[in-house]
């Protein structure tokens, strides 16, 4: 089998994509009578059987509340919940499990930081820097805190390839800058942002940095200590785990001085009507019964990802992106939006005279699932002067043959629209 052959140039054993696909039950189904080609991984990824089974097993055999019961089931659930936290710590190489806060997803993680850190430590006249290619979830929470404290949002421009203009970033940093929040990988363009450099420049001025890692964790091996970021936010469902669960990594010394985001059970150590003592990290930020099944399922997703050879995964994803980029380049009416040198497996494009929604509907009839729209990044669309793009976003279980199906389906789009 071809996939088993060694790459003659790198000596790297090729990624066995057929075997990996078997792990994802959803991929074998047909849509409108055609094999599903799932290229909407940027919106959400599919789940391996091990994750689906783990969530089911939790409900079938372990379901109970955590951190409170003395009975066996509660102890079992608590142990597994905390074991998942340890897995997530390892996954991003955080120093301590105290720094892993479970939240609903990237959006909640960013809102937590904006409201807890922002409202406590940002003041009138302070400046928060974001980039021009942020997802709305890394814009709106900062606009909200700006309105609350009188701070000002500054935006690093991007160039025509969809790369951050580092010189402009350097110029925006000044004594009023009190926070930087940028994406690690752009959801709309695929750009891999040089976040390590961004963090280093901010730290020269003692400014903390939050990285939106939602699109990075499914493609890159993330090491928060190497990046040296202060906060790192990501979602479980984009990294082959369940929906409704995500992680906020925060440097312990910052989390310690931040007030709770929500009040309730589990986040306290002592409550009287006069005064409440908050629980220690990370529980201070986990009010109420959490998404226990989600956390345990996310732990299973980490286990799954750790069975893969990430050098192979990276090489495979690069091959997919190159193949797709080359194939689309041969279509005259197609224009790729986002041509950064360093890109993850995201291909956004527009077709002359054909709106992304029409493209999406016709591709769907061919079994190809893509995202059509503004990708919750309206400022990016404005930057490139397009109302919407069609986005094919890849995961390691996608194949070169599937890209050929996309290309064939695009021919049908052009046929319909003459």
């Amino acid at each position, binding site marked *: 089998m071809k996939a088993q052959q060694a790459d003659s140039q790198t000596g790297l054993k090729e990624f066995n994509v057929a075997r990996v696909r078997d792990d994802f039950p959803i991929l074998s189904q047909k849509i409108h009578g055609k094999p599903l080609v799932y290229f909407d991984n940027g919106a959400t990824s599919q789940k391996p059987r091990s994750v689906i089974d783990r969530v089911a097993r939790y409900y079938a055999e372990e379901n109970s509340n955590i951190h409170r019961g003395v009975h066996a089931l509660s102890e079992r659930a608590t142990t597994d919940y905390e074991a998942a936290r340890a897995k997530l710590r390892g996954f991003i190489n955080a120093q301590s499990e105290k720094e892993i806060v479970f939240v609903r997803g990237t959006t909640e993680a960013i809102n937590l930081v904006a409201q807890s850190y922002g409202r406590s430590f940002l003041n009138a006249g302070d400046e928060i820097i974001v980039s021009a290619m942020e997802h709305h979830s890394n814009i709106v929470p900062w606009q909200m805190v700006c309105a609350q404290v009188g701070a000002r949002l500054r935006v690093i421009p991007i160039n025509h390839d969809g790369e951050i203009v580092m010189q402009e970033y350097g110029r925006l940093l000044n004594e009023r800058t009190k926070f930087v929040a940028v994406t690690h990988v752009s959801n709309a363009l695929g750009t891999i942002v040089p976040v390590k450099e961004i963090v280093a420049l901010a730290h020269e001025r003692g400014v903390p940095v939050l990285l939106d890692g939602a699109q990075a964790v499914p493609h890159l091996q993330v090491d928060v200590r190497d990046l040296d970021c202060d906060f790192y936010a990501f979602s479980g469902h984009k990294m082959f785990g369940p929906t409704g669960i995500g992680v906020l990594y925060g440097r312990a010394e910052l989390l310690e001085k931040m007030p709770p985001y929500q009040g309730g059970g589990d986040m306290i150590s002592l409550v009287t009507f006069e005064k409440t003592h908050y629980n220690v990290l990370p529980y201070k930020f986990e009010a109420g019964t959490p998404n226990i099944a989600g956390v345990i399922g996310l732990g299973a997703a980490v286990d799954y990802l750790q069975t893969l050879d990430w050098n192979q995964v990276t090489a495979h994803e690069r091959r997919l992106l190159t193949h797709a980029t080359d194939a689309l380049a041969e279509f005259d009416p197609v224009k790729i939006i986002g041509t950064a040198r360093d890109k993850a497996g995201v291909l956004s494009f527009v077709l002359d005279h054909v*709106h992304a*929604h029409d493209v999406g*509907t*016709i591709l769907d*009839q061919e079994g190809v699932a893509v995202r059509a729209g503004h990708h919750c990044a309206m400022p990016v*669309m404005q930057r490139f002067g397009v109302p919407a793009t069609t986005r094919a976003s890849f995961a390691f279980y996608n194949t070169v043959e599937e890209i050929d199906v996309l290309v064939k389906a695009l021919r049908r789009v052009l046929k*319909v629209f003459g």
Partner: protein
Amino acid sequence: MSDLDDLYQEVILDHNKSPRNFRAMAEANRKAEGYNPLCGDHVTVYVRLEDGLIKDISFEGSGCAISKASASLMTAELKGKSEADAHQLFDSVHMMLTGDTNAESAAGKVGKLAILSGVCKFPARVKCASLAWHTVNAALAGADRPATTE
């Protein structure tokens, strides 16, 4: 005919390519903007209303083939109609697009707009087709905030 051919019929493709009444209107006395927040489609509808009659109607904006063709067909259909007729037509079109059980009888009342009936098989696209209609409703009501399909 496949569902897809039903959706993208010649007439729709033609209205997409050469939309009728596609212009801003300086003499309009009713105007509204409409957004589809899901896809970023944006339309502005202009109406010249005189004695309860739609003397002139036009639109501009950006959107997919379905939203553009629907807006174009709508302006062609509404020109010269009374405000009350416009409301009635809105209800019938809405029923047809959403595949309401009375859709068949609704389709009988919409005339040339029946060409849009294929949309009901594509639930994700219903809002594309109804955006211009929501917007004209807002324009006639003199609404001061943008219409949305939500």
